[in-house]
C-alpha cells in the first residue's frame, strides 16, 4: 500500500481503523486489580517521599532563617545560643573523611576476599567463608560501636604511636596529644569493617557471573591466573565493583550508632586524623536530638538534608561512571 501512495492517495482504510476505536479490549479483573495495586504502590511511594521532603525542607527553612552564622562554613554547632549560630563544616568534614578512610581500607580488602572466594579458594572453603562474611553483616551496628569503644580504641594506641612516630611528617598522621584514639581515623577503621560484608558480597556475586568463556579466552592466550583475572574478570566486574562500593559508601556516610559510641564529642575540624574529636552528620543528630531545643531540632533536620544531598551526589557520580563506558561493559557480550 505504501508503494502506491506516491501516485494515488490510498483509500482511507476505514474498515481497519474503525472497529479498533469502537472495539473494547477485553480487560480481565485480575489484570485490573494488579495494575491498580502496582499503580497505587507507586503513587504511595511518591506521596510519602514528597511529604518527607516537604516536612524536612519546611523545618530546615525555619532553622536556617534564625541562623546568624553561615550554615555551610561555620564550624560550631550552637543553636541554643542567642543569637543561634550553627554550621555544617565540621560535620561535612568528619563525614567525608571517615567515609573516605573506610573506603580506602575496605574496597581493596573486599575485592581480595571476593576474588579469593570466587576464584582461588577450594570449593570446601569458599562456602563457609562466604557464610562468615554474611555473618559479619548481621552484627547490629551498636555492637560494632561497643566493640569499637571497648576493644578497638584502647588497642589502637600502639598503632597511633607508631603512625605518629614514622608517618607523622605526612601531617595527617601527626598526633598532637596523648588522648585516647577516639578519632576520625578509628571511626574510619570501624566503618571499614562494617561496610566490608556488603562490598564483598556484591563483588563476589559479580565475579561469579563472569562468563566462563571470557576466562577461557584469556587462559587460551597463555594468561596466568592473575592475568586472567585482570583481563577478563575485573573489567567485566568493573561496574559491579563501583556499585558495590557505592552501597558501602552509602552505609558509611549514614552510619550513626557505631560512630556516636566511638567518636569523642570534641567538636573540631582537624587535619590530624589521629586527634580525638570531629563529628559526622548522623552521629551529631543522634547525640544531640534528645536534648535539643525546638530550634535545635530544626537545625539538626537541616543537617540531615545536607547528608541526603551528599548521598544523592555520590550515587549520581557512580551512575555517571558506570554509564560512561556502557558499550564496553560485559552486558554487551
Amino acid at each position, binding site marked *: 500500500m505504501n508503494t502506491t501512495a506516491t501516485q494515488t492517495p490510498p483509500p482511507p482504510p476505514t474498515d481497519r481503523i474503525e472497529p479498533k476505536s469502537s472495539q473494547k479490549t477485553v480487560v480481565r479483573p485480575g489484570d485490573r486489580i494488579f495494575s491498580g495495586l502496582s499503580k497505587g504502590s507507586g503513587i504511595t511511594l511518591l506521596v510519602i517521599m514528597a511529604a518527607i521532603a516537604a516536612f524536612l525542607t519546611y523545618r530546615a527553612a525555619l532553622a536556617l532563617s534564625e541562623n546568624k552564622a553561615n550554615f555551610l562554613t561555620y564550624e560550631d554547632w550552637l543553636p541554643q545560643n542567642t543569637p543561634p549560630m550553627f554550621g555544617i563544616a565540621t560535620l561535612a568534614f568528619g563525614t567525608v573523611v571517615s567515609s573516605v578512610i573506610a573506603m580506602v581500607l575496605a574496597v581493596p580488602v573486599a575485592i581480595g576476599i571476593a576474588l579469593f572466594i570466587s576464584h582461588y579458594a577450594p570449593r570446601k572453603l569458599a562456602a563457609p567463608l562466604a557464610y562468615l562474611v554474611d555473618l559479619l553483616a548481621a552484627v547490629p551496628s551498636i555492637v560494632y560501636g561497643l566493640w569499637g569503644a571497648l576493644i578497638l580504641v584502647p588497642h589502637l594506641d600502639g598503632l597511633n604511636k607508631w603512625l605518629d612516630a614514622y608517618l607523622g611528617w605526612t601531617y595527617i598522621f601527626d598526633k598532637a596529644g596523648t588522648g585516647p584514639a577516639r578519632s576520625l581515623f578509628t571511626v574510619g577503621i570501624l566503618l571499614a569493617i562494617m561496610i566490608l560484608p556488603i562490598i564483598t558480597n556484591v563483588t563476589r556475586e559479580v565475579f561469579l557471573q563472569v*562468563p566462563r*568463556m*571470557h576466562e577461557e579466552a584469556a587462559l587460551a592466550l*597463555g594468561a596466568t591466573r592473575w592475568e586472567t583475572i585482570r583481563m577478563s574478570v575485573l573489567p567485566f566486574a568493573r561496574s559491579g565493583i563501583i556499585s558495590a562500593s557505592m552501597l558501602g559508601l552509602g552505609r558509611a556516610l549514614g552510619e550513626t550508632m557505631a560512630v556516636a559510641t566511638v567518636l569523642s564529642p570534641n567538636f573540631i575540624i582537624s587535619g590530624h586524623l589521629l586527634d580525638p574529636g570531629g563529628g559526622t552528620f548522623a552521629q551529631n543528630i543522634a547525640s544531640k536530638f534528645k536534648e535539643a531545643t525546638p530550634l535545635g531540632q530544626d537545625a539538626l533536620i537541616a543537617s540531615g538534608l545536607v547528608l541526603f544531598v551528599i548521598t544523592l551526589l555520590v550515587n549520581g557520580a557512580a551512575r555517571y561512571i558506570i554509564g560512561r563506558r556502557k558499550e564496553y561493559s560485559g552486558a554487551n557480550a
Partner: protein
Amino acid sequence: MAKRIDVSGLTAYYSTFKAIEDISMTVEPRSVTAFIGPSGCGKSTFLRTLNRMHEVTPGGRVEGKVMLDDENLYGSGVDPVTVRREVGMVFQRPNPFPTMSIFDNVAAGLRLNGSYKKSELNDVVEKSLRGANLWDEVKDRLNRPGSGLSGGQQQRLCIARAIAVEPKVLLMDEPCSALDPISTLAIEDLIGELKEHFTIVIVTHNMQQAARVSDRTAFFNLAAVGQPGKLIEIDDTERIFSNPSVQATEDYISGRFG
C-alpha cells in the same frame, strides 16, 4: 614455525569419569586435521588436552603423552601457561573480550608476553587482522568495542587474536557452529590460508565442512553412554569419506547412526 603433534596413549578424566581413552595420533605440520564423531564422544575434550585447557575444568586430569615436535606438553616442570602460548585456541562461541576495543583484543596476547612499542603493536595487529581477513572491515574502527561486531566478524577477531602471538598450532573447537553460512564460508576460506603457516586441528559436527577444509580426518566414537570416547580411525580425508577402513566410520558418515 608450525610443529608436529604426536599423541600417544592419552586418557582424560573428569574427576572419576573417563572421558576419552588411549588415544594416539600424529598431526603433521602445516595441515588441517578434522575431528568428527557423535556428540559426547570426547572430540572437544581431546582437543582441549592438546593445549592443557582440559585441566582448567574442575576435576580435569590427563594421562599420556602429547609431543609438540620433541617437547612433551605433559612433561614434568612444563608450565601450562607456556604451552598455551604455543598452542592457540578458537572457541565454539566467539568470545572477544567485551571490555576491550578491537585493537586491544588483538594485542591482548602480545601484551601478556611483554612490553611492545606502539609501532610494533600496530604492525602485529594489522598483520593479524589481515591474516584473519578482517582488516578491511574494521580498519576504521579499531578503537570500537569488539563486542559490537557481527558474530562472524567476532569469530574472525578471535582468530586474529589467536594468531597474533604466532602459535605453532591452532586448535578450533567447532568455530562455525554459531555462525550463518556466509560467515562460515569466510572462516573456511581463512582456514585454507592459515594452514600455510600453522598446524590446524578443527572439531566439527558438519561433515561437509570436514570434507571441505581438512587434509586428514579423525573419527571418534563411544561404545555407549557412560563409556569413554575412543579414536576409531584417522586417515586422509578423501579416504575417510570415500572408503573408510572401519565399518563404524562408514555408518556414521553415511548417516546410518549418530
